[in-house]
């Protein structure tokens, strides 16, 4: 049996109060646990929408939400496990997620709750299976493509929100409902922009509370609807007559994309946890990420098994850990326990079950903004050449066309309908396939021969920048490579110049950018310390040593070799 080595040498960063393996005082753990639970709680909106769309009774929705909260608790425990094959070991709680909203709504409209649960199990098992082949995924899903998926999720969530509110199958909203929606959104936005501390952190939750109050006072929430809440008990194990599970091959595509998106988001979130906990983080620890994605997938599968919708690691929680400095695993257990208790408090889940559509829509719209913009930021974090621009552009446009122009999907029937009919699926599929095709001809390594007589640093800059865009590299790393090459060539050509043709090679993969320059001459010196100011001012050798010092500091690793009359200089940049 394979051993599962844990993170052996992590150094706790200075700004972290409590690292993942440390135990804070109970009061700190409780307060942090409550904060995280508060931030995650607003995502209970997603299962509420799915269950309400199913048209089941309020009591059934109450029980299902209770089960859902218990599932969040179990999934959070699973993720925090640090021994064995499951769990990243980090304080990385689970949350319901926008990723599964559109697919779940589609499933519930097609085949009721049993189809939602059956397809959710499928998605969870698929994500768990993906955990094993993650490292291969990265080659086929470049960073900007995962950004497009996030952007499309944000867009589809906003459309679900608007459709829920405007009521395509139910009545149009009343004036009071518009006011409730406006109040919910306004409070959330005001607290988020101008609020401080806890008020800002829990702005969405407070917005929903205000929305409920407004709905009550404006008559949107009737006494009749509140009756079941008064009747509900304070504590009970949630129980619901399970409708079973069903499966529909036509929904495989949309739930697969959701599972892939969830896996990618889990990778990103666990990455953030790793960086937060290790001052010497250089690159992702793929084993803990694999275990974390497995836990995430199993959490979703368990959700489908017991009657919930898909879950995912909570990215805002990872950000909150950074902000509070409390990364202890104990907090994960506190959060899990809080959700188990909430799940067994029918009064609370009954209150959630009657959430007015105006409150739901406002909360979702707010969330959709952040999701969509986060997707845009991921897309623009990398250099994009023509190929990558077309991949993202076409994916986005086809996704939007499906939503905006019914004629696009008018004649499509059968198994094609859920693929082309869903903006998330179709847009992602188009982008994915185009990416596979356009990868043809992109080389991982390039060479350039430079004639000293015609040397133009601007041409080198353009060459490496174009190559960086073709690779989808990070612009800051490409800038460092450009400085390295141009400063080195400049120094090599001074003062006499003309050492024969310079041979430049550059290679890239997702974690490394390597540059190699070969020229006729003596290898440059790369001193560990900067020459003194007077050395630089008064001697040629001082200026050369300054160049070597700058080049050493510019790259993660420098290597200088002499092969006969040729010098070979290599720069390595971590990507």
């Amino acid at each position: 049996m394979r051993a599962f080595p844990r993170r052996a040498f992590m150094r706790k960063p200075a700004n972290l109060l409590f690292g993942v393996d440390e135990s804070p005082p109970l009061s700190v753990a409780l307060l942090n646990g409550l904060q995280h639970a508060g931030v995650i709680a607003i995502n209970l909106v997603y299962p509420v929408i799915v269950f309400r769309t199913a048209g089941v009774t309020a009591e059934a929705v109450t029980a299902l939400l209770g089960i859902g909260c218990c599932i969040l608790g179990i999934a959070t425990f699973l993720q925090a496990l640090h021994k064995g094959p499951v769990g990243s070991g980090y304080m990385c709680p689970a949350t319901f997620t926008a990723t599964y909203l559109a697919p779940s709504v589609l499933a519930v409209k097609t085949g009721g709750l049993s189809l939602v649960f059956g397809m959710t199990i499928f998605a969870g098992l698929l994500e768990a299976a993906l955990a094993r082949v993650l490292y291969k995924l990265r080659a086929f899903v470049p960073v900007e493509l995962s950004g497009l998926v996030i952007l499309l999720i944000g867009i589809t969530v906003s459309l679900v929100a608007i459709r829920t509110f405007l009521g395509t199958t139910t009545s149009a909203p009343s004036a009071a409902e518009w006011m409730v929606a406006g109040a919910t959104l306004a409070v959330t936005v005001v607290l988020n922009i101008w609020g401080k501390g806890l008020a800002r952190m829990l702005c969405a939750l407070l917005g929903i509370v205000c929305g409920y109050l407004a709905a009550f006072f404006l008559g949107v929430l009737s006494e009749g609807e509140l009756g079941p809440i008064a009747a509900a008990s304070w504590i009970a194990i949630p129980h619901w007559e399970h409708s079973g599970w069903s499966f529909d091959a036509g929904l495989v595509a949309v739930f697969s994309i959701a599972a892939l998106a969830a896996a990618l988001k889990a990778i990103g979130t666990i990455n953030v946890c790793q960086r937060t906990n290790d001052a010497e983080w250089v690159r992702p620890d793929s084993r803990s990420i694999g275990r974390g994605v497995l836990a995430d997938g199993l959490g979703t599968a368990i959700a489908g098994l017991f009657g919930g919708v898909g879950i995912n690691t909570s990215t805002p929680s990872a950000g909150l850990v950074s902000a509070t400095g409390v990364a202890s695993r104990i907090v994960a257990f506190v959060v899990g326990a809080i959700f188990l208790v909430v799940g067994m408090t029918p009064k609370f889940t009954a209150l959630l079950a009657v959430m007015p559509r105006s409150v739901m829509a406002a909360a979702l719209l707010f969330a959709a903004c952040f999701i969509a913009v986060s997707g845009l930021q991921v897309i623009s974090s990398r250099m994009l050449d023509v190929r990558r621009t077309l991949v993202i552009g076409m994916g986005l446009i086809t996704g939007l066309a499906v939503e905006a122009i019914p004629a696009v999907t008018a004649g499509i029937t059968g198994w094609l309908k859920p693929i082309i009919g869903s903006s998330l699926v179709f847009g992602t599929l188009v982008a994915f396939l185009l990416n596979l095709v356009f990868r043809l001809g992109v080389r991982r390594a390039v060479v350039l021969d430079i004639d000293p007589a015609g040397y133009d640093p601007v041409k080198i800059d353009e060459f490496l920048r174009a190559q960086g865009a073709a690779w989808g590299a990070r612009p800051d790393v490409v800038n460092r490579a450009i400085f390295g090459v141009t400063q080195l060539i400049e120094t090599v050509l001074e003062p006499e110049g003309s050492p024969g043709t310079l041979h430049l090679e550059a290679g890239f993969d997702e974690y490394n950018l390597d540059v190699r320059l070969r020229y006729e001459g003596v290898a440059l010196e790369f001193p560990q310390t900067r020459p003194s100011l007077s050395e630089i001012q008064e001697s040629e050798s001082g200026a050369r040593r300054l160049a070597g010092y700058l080049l050493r500091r510019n790259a993660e690793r420098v290597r200088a070799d002499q092969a006969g009359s040729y010098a070979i200089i290599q720069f390595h940049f971590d990507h």
Partner: protein
Amino acid sequence: MEIIETRIHAVVVIDVKGRIDSTSAGPLQERLSGLARSDCAGLVIDFKQVPYISSAGFKALLIAAKHGEESGCALVLCGVVGEVRRMFEIAAFDQVFSILATRKECIEQLAAWPKPEGAP
């Protein structure tokens, strides 16, 4: 590379446009040293339109600063951002030169500094 000179009383503001590398550093250093040794009380060098500086550029700045020190003309830099800022930082030259955010702050700084003896 282009150098545009503006005089504001006894302070000379130099706008540098373009790369500062081994080809342009020589003329830049001569111009700066010439001004440093002339009757100006201070020299402001604006890097806002400089996308790149190499070791040759730093050498030119250091020589000009030395000449300025000898003749009582202080050197202050502004507009040091992006890649150029990064180069200043990795060489620790941001500790050697006086660097401020804007041209206005540089001029105010120069006005506030006491003049060394013999300076105009």
